């Protein structure tokens, strides 16, 4: 089994790289879309709403197929890796947007006013006062989204990316060591996701209900 390891490790880094870039992108998209929806920006709000519904209600596999096979035909050249990152970012963005939006709604409007009264501009108060609180208030669904997105990386092999799933299937096809190859696959996914899960639980416990600092007065 040891001889398979380098292949798995290589695939692990590829999967992780696409996963991290995709998640980073999803956070960015999510923040922007959440603000557009929350502040009811005309026109953009409708587009954002349509985007969220489209990506939340179709499977990632189909989204990836569309980007990988249809986009080049429409004159947009895209590599498989970029496709994976973009697909994950767009899917995740829709989920992150919903989670940030609920966080934004939970920040009381008088917090806006208290920041305005200190002379902050809208941009300054969003960055320093409102968004940090909104993200904290939505931490539970935020962590759940990250774990969900890392799991979704397992469909990348469908667009011929040599990710963990691809390597496992490939080796099974070559050597018929089905059990061993699948056990390794599970182990590598655990290595990737378990730390996120543990860290997430820890952060959630510290920030429960949007309260900050250690417990007790």
């Amino acid at each position: 089994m040891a001889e398979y390891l380098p292949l798995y490790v290589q695939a692990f880094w590829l999967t992780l790289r696409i996963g991290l870039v995709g998640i980073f992108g999803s956070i960015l998209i999510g923040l922007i879309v959440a603000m557009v929806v929350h502040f009811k920006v005309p026109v953009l709000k409708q587009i954002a709403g349509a985007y969220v519904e489209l990506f939340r209600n179709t499977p990632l596999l189909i989204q990836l197929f569309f980007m990988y096979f249809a986009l080049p035909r429409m004159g947009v050249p895209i590599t498989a890796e970029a496709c994976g990152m973009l697909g994950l970012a767009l899917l995740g963005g829709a989920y992150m947007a919903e989670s940030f939006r609920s966080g934004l709604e939970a920040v009381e409007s008088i917090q806006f006013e208290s920041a305005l009264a200190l002379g902050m501009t809208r941009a300054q108060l969003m960055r320093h006062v409102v968004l940090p609180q909104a993200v904290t208030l939505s931490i539970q669904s935020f962590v759940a989204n990250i774990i969900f997105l890392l799991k979704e990386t397992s469909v990348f092999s469908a667009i011929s990316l040599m990710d963990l799933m691809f390597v496992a299937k490939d080796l099974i096809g070559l050597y018929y060591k089905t059990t061993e190859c699948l056990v390794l696959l599970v182990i590598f996914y655990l290595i990737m996701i378990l730390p996120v899960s543990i860290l997430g639980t820890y952060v959630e416990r510290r920030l429960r209900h949007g309260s900050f600092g250690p417990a007790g007065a």
Partner: protein
Amino acid sequence: MAEGELHIEHLHKAYGDHVVLDDINLVVEPGEVVVVIGPSGCGKSTLLRCINGLEQIQGGRILLDGEVVDGASKDIAALRAKLGMVFQSYELFPHKTVLENVTLAPTVVQKRPKEEVEAEAMTLLERVGLADRAKDFPRQLSGGQKQRVAIARALAMKPEILLLDEITAALDPEMVHEVLDVILGLAREGKTMIIVTHEMGFARAVADRIIFIDEGAIVEEAAPADFFDHPQTERAQKFLRTFEYEK
């Protein structure tokens, strides 16, 4: 016009058909402490919110140092930075420590160097008796302590005028004093303040001038001793009687 001079001319504020403030005229001189009192819902808190542009006004104008305060204008942030506001419900930033609450606006809005701002913030926290809580988060503090931090946060911007909106109304009685003592100290130093309060004893002690508002209009305006001992209007007399008890 001198720094920290506030002119309110024919201010009219309404929500739809409901008139909240009608033809308010008020001049606050630098160094003056004006206390606004009146029954609940008379519009006194709204007046403070209009002064720093948190509420749009429907008529008249408000001038700070000769500049028009307009909540919809692009320059409103710069004007608000000259007006410190303390809210009834403190509104500290829960995700920031006590010290960060005080330093945030000076570093972000005024873009002053962090070390300088922190040193000043510590001096302010010392003055409100909370230097030892600088590293704590707001939720670890009592209401009175939170409100003192909120005062330090407002002072850190070196505002020309401090607006205090019922800052003790949410506090337990034993905490009211620690907060009002800080304000009395500021008054002695000549800080310009507009104070909305229901604490009549405090109003009398701190004010240079009392403004009595009822149903959205200034009904009476007088020095504290005159107002509390010889209220001229029937409405003020009636209002002051609500603070008396007979067995």
